[in-house]
């Protein structure tokens, strides 16, 4: 009897079972079921099939899902979304000088060039200047090294715990010169653990420490802007990812494991709150 191809009455009664029959059709079939024993038998047969089939499929749900399948989906990498971080404001400066402005600029350049040439032509009395240390990039190395060291023992993540939030703000403000608020990133699944202070590239850096439910350690760092700061926004060194943005006075960085799929979103959220 299985898979008969569906006689007209069978198909109509089947549609009646799942409420897909039109109102007129439903009335017609219900009237027929009152009078026609054959239709009643078919209807009962179909209802029995529905009930039996549901049992089979419901029992399938109780079967265990392979752990490797669960793990693979849980850890599948997500595509990074393009998140717009705040950047330093750039003022539009249309380069359309008038003839008078252009003439003035040429004259100024001539005078400056002449002066510079005269100065270079003079014998230099000055001795060699001591080399200036190029700290460009050093502070990022320091941050990566610091993150790698401090994020290992997860029971000593912070110097000041999250409960002393007022002391944290006062301490880091006094040492870094950066005025800030402690962002609440619980919406991103992060718990604030406390703060640290360290030196990177010769400058004090404030460090707010967060952890995720998965045990990832995420740092939100800030320091006063340096003229030699790189303009990077996203960087991965070894297995550590850094995302940065700037305000007119401060450079901020979110640092975490490169496997943290939501780092860019955390940075975007923190940028709006700190």
């Amino acid at each position, binding site marked *: 009897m299985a898979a008969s191809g569906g006689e007209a009455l069978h198909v109509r009664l089947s549609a009646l079972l799942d409420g897909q029959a039109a109102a007129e059709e439903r009335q017609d079939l219900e009237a027929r079921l009152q009078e026609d024993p054959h239709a009643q038998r078919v209807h009962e047969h179909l209802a029995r099939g529905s009930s039996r*089939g549901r049992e089979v499929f419901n029992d399938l749900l109780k079967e265990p899902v392979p752990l490797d399948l669960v793990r693979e989906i849980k850890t599948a990498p997500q595509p990074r979304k393009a998140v717009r971080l705040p950047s330093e404001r750039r003022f539009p400066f249309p380069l359309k000088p008038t003839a008078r402005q252009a003439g003035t600029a040429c004259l100024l350049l001539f005078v400056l060039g002449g002066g510079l040439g005269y100065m270079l032509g003079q014998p230099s009395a000055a001795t060699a200047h001591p080399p200036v240390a190029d700290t460009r990039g050093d502070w990022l190395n320091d941050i990566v090294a610091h993150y790698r060291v401090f994020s290992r023992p997860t029971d000593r993540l912070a110097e000041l715990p999250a409960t002393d939030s007022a002391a944290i703000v006062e301490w880091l403000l006094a040492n870094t010169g950066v005025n800030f608020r402690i962002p609440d990133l619980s919406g991103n699944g992060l718990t604030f653990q406390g703060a640290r202070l360290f030196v990177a590239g010769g400058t004090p850096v404030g460090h707010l420490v967060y952890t995720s439910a998965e045990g990832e350690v995420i740092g939100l760092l800030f320091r006063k802007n340096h003229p030699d700061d790189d303009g990077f926004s996203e960087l991965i060194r070894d297995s550590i990812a850094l995302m940065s943005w700037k305000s007119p006075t401060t450079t901020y960085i979110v640092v975490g494991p490169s496997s943290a799929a939501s780092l860019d979103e955390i940075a975007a959220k923190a940028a709006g709150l700190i």
Partner: protein
Amino acid sequence: MTQSVAPLDLRRDLVALLPRLRRFALTLAPSMEAADGLVREACLKAISKGRPEGENERFLFRLVRDQSLETMRDKPEADAADLKIKAPAKGRPTVHQAIVLDMPQALASVFLLVEVEGLSHAETADILDISTGKVASYLCDARLHFADPDTHQAERRA
């Protein structure tokens, strides 16, 4: 600043939906291993593409179905008339898996989506890319199949 949904959400949703997705995939595959393969590929695609706005699990059922067609296209020896991929299963199926695996694929898929998942004929037709008339016809045949005493005997034998 606009906030987007935490990216872990889709993966968590997928893990929660895995039993239902595996069950649907079993109606399209020749074995539980093959069904798991369909689910794995469909989920990875969903994660990489993201969930379309306003979509629920129906789009995942569609992804699983598309994945089964894609797998079949990669196997030219598969019979186009029978949408199940003929490949030997590694492990022995459970009783309930065997009942579903023995059914013609379209019947099992339609029955699951309408009778168990509660989708309408039109939604089911959209996922399986068939007409609503066929949905009604296959559903009737599936009910007759399950009501058949031979199906119960096969279950007892298993």
